[in-house]
Each structure stands twice: as C-alpha cells, then as structure tokens.
C-alpha cells in the first residue's frame, strides 16, 4: 500500500498551538482579575450615564408581559432624560437601558443576567417577571452584588435572605388577600352575606401562591371554602370545572387565571348559566385586560381582577404617563407596564439619593443598597409614589414594600362599550363597583 501524505498531523499541530496560546492568555486574564492592580484616581470620574439592565420574557408564553414592560421602560427613560434632566445628584447623568430576553428557561435568564453584568457592568437589574427565572437571576445578582429590582411577585423571592433585592410591587399573596377583602367590603356595603366560596387557580407557583393568600383570608374572615381547584393554564376544556362549581353552588368564586383559560372560563361559565353573587379575579392576569375583553366579549362583564398598578389613579404624573403610553403604543398600560413605571422611578429616586448620600462612590452596591433602604416616598415628594396604588413606597429589610397594595378593576358597560374601571380601594371618578352581579 503506497504511503499517503496526510495533512492531519500539521493541522493537529496548529490547533494545539492555538489552543495552548489561547488558554494561556485567558488564564492570565483570569488570574489578573482576581487581584486587581491598584489604580491611582485622584478625582472621582464624572458619571455620564447609568446603565440599567432589564431582563424580561420577550419570547414564549409570557411575551405579553415582557413586551409591555420594555415599552414602558423606554417611555420612562425618555421622560427622565429629557424632561427631568437625568439624575441631578449625579451631575445630570442620563439613564440608559439594555434589554435582554429572559428566554424560556431559568438557564437563559441566568445567562441574560451574566451577560448584563460581565459585558455592561450594570449596577442595577430589573426583571424578570417570572419567579423561577428571577430566582436563577437572583443567585447571580446577589453573588455579584448587583441590585435586583423585581416585578416577579411570588412571595418566596423575598424570603431568600438576599441583601441586594428590592420589590416595589405587591407580592402574590397580597393579591389574593386584596380580592377577598374587596368582595367582603362590597358585600358589607350592600348588606349581602357571603357564606361559601370556591377558589380556582392555574396551577403554576404564581397562581397557587395567590390562591393560597385568598384561601387564608377567606378562612380568617369565616367564609367556608367549598373547593379549591387548580388546573393547568393551557387547559382546553373548562366544562368539567364549571359543572363542578355549578353543583357546589357557592356564593362567590375567586378565580386566578392566566389569560386564555380566563377567557375560556368566562365563556364556559356564561354558557352554563353560572351566576353566583360575585366572581372576583386575582393575580392581575386575565378577565379585565383589554385583550381578554376583546376575546371574551360580555362573558366577562362584571368580572374583577386585582392589579399591581392602578391606571386610573388621579395623580398628575400617573395621568401623564398613562396618556403618553396610550399615545405611543395605542393601548392602556396594564400590570407589567405599571410595575415598570413605579419601579423605574423608584430606581431613579434611589440613584438621586445615592448621589446625595455618597457623592464619591454612588454606584457602589452597598451605597446603592443603603440609598434604597433610606427611601420613604409619598405622593408629594416623589413621582414614583404617585404611580403606586397605595401612594407610599418604603422598603422592609427583606426588600418588600411595607405599603404594598393592589387596585381592583371591574369590567363595566360604559356608554355601550365594555371598559375596565377602577372600583377599589377608591373608585375612579363617576364610577362605583357593581355588586352583587345583576341577576343573582
């Protein structure tokens, strides 16, 4: 057999050499990062801009929220930079945002956070709406001492013992509690007795947490929970559940849907003639948002839901933001946008505070943290609080807002169109809650 002149050895040699050189360079870089050489900086450099990382689900089932949140962020940043002159205590530094898609798994959310930290060196990250994504992100931000401000509502997140974690929005269980309190308040005001209830919820950790909040509150207030039914959010047939509820005949139903299942439930309930004293939603998904109303029509008439944001709050800044959002994007801002509004303005307040408290090193994580903890915002001293349902923002040591609360919206027929209106805790102008459901 004639010997073949093979190119393989040469190629192997080249590859090995390249690999060794690359390895060497990389390792040198790695070890050099472990012990940074001291730099001589006589004066602190002026901060031109503060980059905030935003991680939101832009693809997958939760893309609805992510896209809305990013739109809201762009609006807020424009206002802060152009109308308010940037962060004044930092010499008018502008805000800049970098948006990363959280993807469809905790793995990609984690990568998004790592990328923001290692490539953009952001001091603050906002996100990621979904609790298990946020959990993956949180381990990264906590380890790197990056402030995480979250719009994910599951209670567990603030129980991790994280130090650099803040949540302005009301946590999941308080949504459940709000829904129950609203119903019982209205019942009392209209002299209706509520004795029994059925709770249904989509079976993710979020739906379950909200529903448990509701369950506990109902039990506390002496209402008997006849059944607590959970179901998969992508359920295609609600009739077994609706049939079961009809048989149980409760006074009220507390429902915690996702979106499609909410519409499906409303339509199926209408077809079955299910009409208890009241049907209240909780958890900010479904029933009363513009798209659900469009899809369900009058099947969702008189349904309510709790929201982390009140778009009808009559403060100056809130109305201004809502109008501007509608003008830019053609729809009313709901949950995800609202959370972004007040959270981003809270971040702005914290940056201002940090600049005042620590003019030499405002973006130091521990300084930022202290700035956050020192905030005590209300409607007269900040924009952020004007946008928040309860009008007050102050952080507990675990990062949750001490004055967290939700607003309740109801679908009513206003001038012939189905419109969501705020009915609780303060109804918007010219409106009141319709309770009980007509026909009961």
């Amino acid at each position: 057999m004639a010997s073949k002149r093979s190119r393989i050895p040469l190629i192997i040699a080249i590859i090995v050499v390249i690999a060794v050189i690359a390895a060497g360079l990389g390792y040198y870089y790695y070890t050099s990062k472990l012990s940074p050489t001291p730099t001589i900086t006589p004066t602190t450099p002026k901060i031109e801009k503060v980059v905030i990382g935003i991680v939101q689900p832009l693809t997958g089932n939760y893309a609805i929220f992510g896209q809305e949140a990013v739109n809201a962020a762009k609006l807020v940043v424009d206002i802060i930079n152009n109308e308010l002159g940037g962060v004044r205590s930092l010499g008018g530094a502008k805000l800049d945002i970098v948006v990363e898609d959280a993807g469809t798994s905790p793995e990609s959310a984690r990568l998004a956070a790592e990328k923001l930290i290692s490539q953009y060196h952001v001091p603050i990250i906002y996100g990621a709406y979904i609790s298990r994504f946020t959990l993956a992100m949180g381990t990264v931000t906590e380890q790197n001492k990056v402030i995480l401000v979250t719009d994910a509502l599951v209670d567990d997140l603030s129980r991790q013992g994280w130090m650099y974690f803040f949540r302005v929005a009301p946590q999941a269980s308080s949504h459940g509690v709000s829904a129950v309190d609203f119903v019982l308040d209205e019942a009392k005001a209209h002299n209706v007795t509520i004795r029994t209830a059925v709770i249904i919820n989509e079976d993710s950790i979020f739906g379950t947490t909200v529903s448990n909040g509701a369950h506990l509150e109902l039990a506390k207030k002496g209402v008997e929970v006849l059944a607590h039914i959970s179901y998969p959010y992508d359920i295609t047939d609600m009739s077994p559940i609706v049939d079961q509820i009809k048989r149980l005949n409760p006074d009220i139903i507390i429902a915690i849907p996702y979106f499609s299942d909410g519409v499906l439930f409303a339509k199926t309930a209408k077809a079955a003639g299910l009409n208890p004293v009241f049907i209240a939603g909780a958890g900010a998904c479904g029933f009363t948002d513009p798209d659900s109303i469009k899809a369900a029509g009058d099947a969702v008439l008189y349904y309510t839901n709790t929201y982390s944001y009140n778009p009808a709050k009559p403060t100056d800044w809130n109305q201004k933001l809502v109008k501007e959002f509608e003008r830019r994007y053609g729809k009313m801002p709901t949950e995800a946008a609202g959370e972004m509004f007040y959270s981003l303005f809270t971040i702005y307040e914290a940056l201002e505070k940090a600049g005042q408290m620590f003019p030499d090193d405002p973006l130091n994580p521990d300084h930022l943290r202290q700035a956050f903890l020192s905030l005590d915002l209300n409607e007269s001293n900040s924009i952020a609080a004007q946008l928040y349902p309860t009008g007050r923002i102050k952080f507990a040591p675990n990062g949750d807002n001490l004055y967290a609360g939700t607003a309740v919206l109801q679908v009513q027929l206003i001038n012939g169109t189905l419109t969501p209106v705020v009915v609780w805790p303060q109804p918007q102008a010219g409106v009141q809650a319709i309770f009980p459901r007509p026909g009961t």
Partner: protein
Amino acid sequence: MELFNREILLALAIFEILVLGLGFALSGNSYLMLLAAQVLLFAVFVATWNIIGGLTGQLDLASSAYMALGGITTSLLWMRLGVPPLLGVFAGGAVAMGLAVLIGLPTFRFGVKEVWYALMTASLVVILNNLFRYTMGPWDFYLPSKWGLIYLRPRTYFELFLIIDVVLVIVILVNVYISNSKIGYYLRSIREDELASESIGIDTRSYKLRALAIYSFITGAAGFLQIVIYSSFSYRLFDTSLAISIAIMGIIGGLGSISGSIASAVIFRTLGEYLRSSLGGVFPGLDLLLYGIMLIIVGVLKPEGLAGLFNQVRRWLGK
C-alpha cells in the same frame, strides 16, 4: 476490533486539549464561561442520548424525564438526608435507570416500536410532570447554599465547566466502548433492521434494554448538574420540549456519530444563545424562527447530519 484504538484516543486527546484550552481562555468572562458550561452539559445529554437513539435506533423522547428524575432524587437525598451529591448522583442514576427498565421491560416485550415508542416516551415526561406537580406542588425547591466539590456545586463556573468536561469524557468513552464492542455490533444490527436481527437469533429486547439502562443511568446522574445550573427544581424540569431538542440534536449530528452529536449540540446551542442575546430583545421570536429554519435546512439538505459533513472533511484531509 480493538476497543480503544490509537486513532480514537488521539482524537479524544485533541478534543480535550481544545476543550480545556477553551475553558482557560474563557475563564475571565463569567457570561461566556457559564454559556460554555451550559453548552457542554447539553452536549453531555445529547452524546448520552446517542446510545439509545444513534447506536440502537430507538426514538426515545424521554431524556428530560430521566434527567429530572435523577437530578431531583440526588437533590432530595442531599436536602432531606444529607447525602452529598458526589455520591447521590449514583442513586439518582439508579432511580432513573430503574424507572426506564421498569417501563422498558413490558414496552420492548410487547413490541412497542417506532412512532409508538416515541409517543410513549414523550407521554412519560408529561405523566411525571403532572404527578410531580400533584404530589409535590408547584413550588420551586432551592438547593442548599453549600459549595464544594463534594456537593458538585463549585463556586466558579470554570470549575463547573471542568466537572462537566469530566462527565463528557466518560460519556464519550462509554459510547466508544459500546460502539466497538459486541454489544454495539448487535445494537447496530437492531438499528438497521430489527426484524431481521430477531430472525437470526439476536435477543433484541435484552440488548435494547441494556442500551436503555446505560443511557437512562448516565442521564439521571448528570441531571443533577442541570439543577445546579438552574439553582432550583420544580415540576417544570420534566419538560417535553427539552427532550425533543436533545433527540433532534442527536439526529442533526448524524445518528450513531459521537462527534456529530457533540458538534451539533455545541453549534446549535451556542448559535441559539447568540441569536437570543443579539436578537431576542430586538425582534422577539426571531432567534427561534432562525433556529427553526436551520433545522429545516439541515434536515432537508443533509439528513446524514453533521457526521456526513465530517466524513467528507476527513476524506479531503486524508488525500
């Protein structure tokens, strides 16, 4: 046939030099290092799947079930009984293997094959997903905050990368061993034509079960590393689309080819992340769209997968 001939060991050595070199090169950038670790772990699962899918030709779509079952077993043993994961992963693998064999025995015995086998395995993932949610609730369970090799939870992504690399080398060696041994010979025969294999006296059920057992054990053991990357686990770990992705990567790589499996896993997973990070925020869904188009193109134009490409390159090199 020599089990571990010189050529293969040389190729493996070169591969390892490249991998380690890459690891060192990236160790300064935590984002890229994490990505490399994730990509390598994905390659582990695809290369392991090659045992049942590539070498034996069975359309198994349950890898995420074994991964989750094994990983969760390991985690619970740690969280509830204090068993360090370095030991616990063997229990995890055993549990996954146990379930696989328990179901595999009647399945192969009664001759469930092809599409039906694929659907059965896909259904298994959903069944376990629902059962886990029903019994353990929808909660996220967090790994204890303890670090160290014995917990298989290193402090740096670089060390995680190295651990995964060790697992990958083991998987490659297992693949090579099976491929070049008598078992591999029978499995290949089963893959080519199961009916004919049976008629010449090969106990197809027994060999399929063996392949299933090995694959499910390794997948179950390595599952814990997936949980380490997620930092938590829940019923969502039983994920049908992940199992399908793993199988598809094995196909695109070229059935039976270990190098193809690894290459396709690395290329597509990296590409997927690149698309997500550059386009995800700009045009939502565009990254997945392009991924889908790539799948179509490769499937239609090069069904022998990347392995076919490698063969062409090897021939060119040999000239």
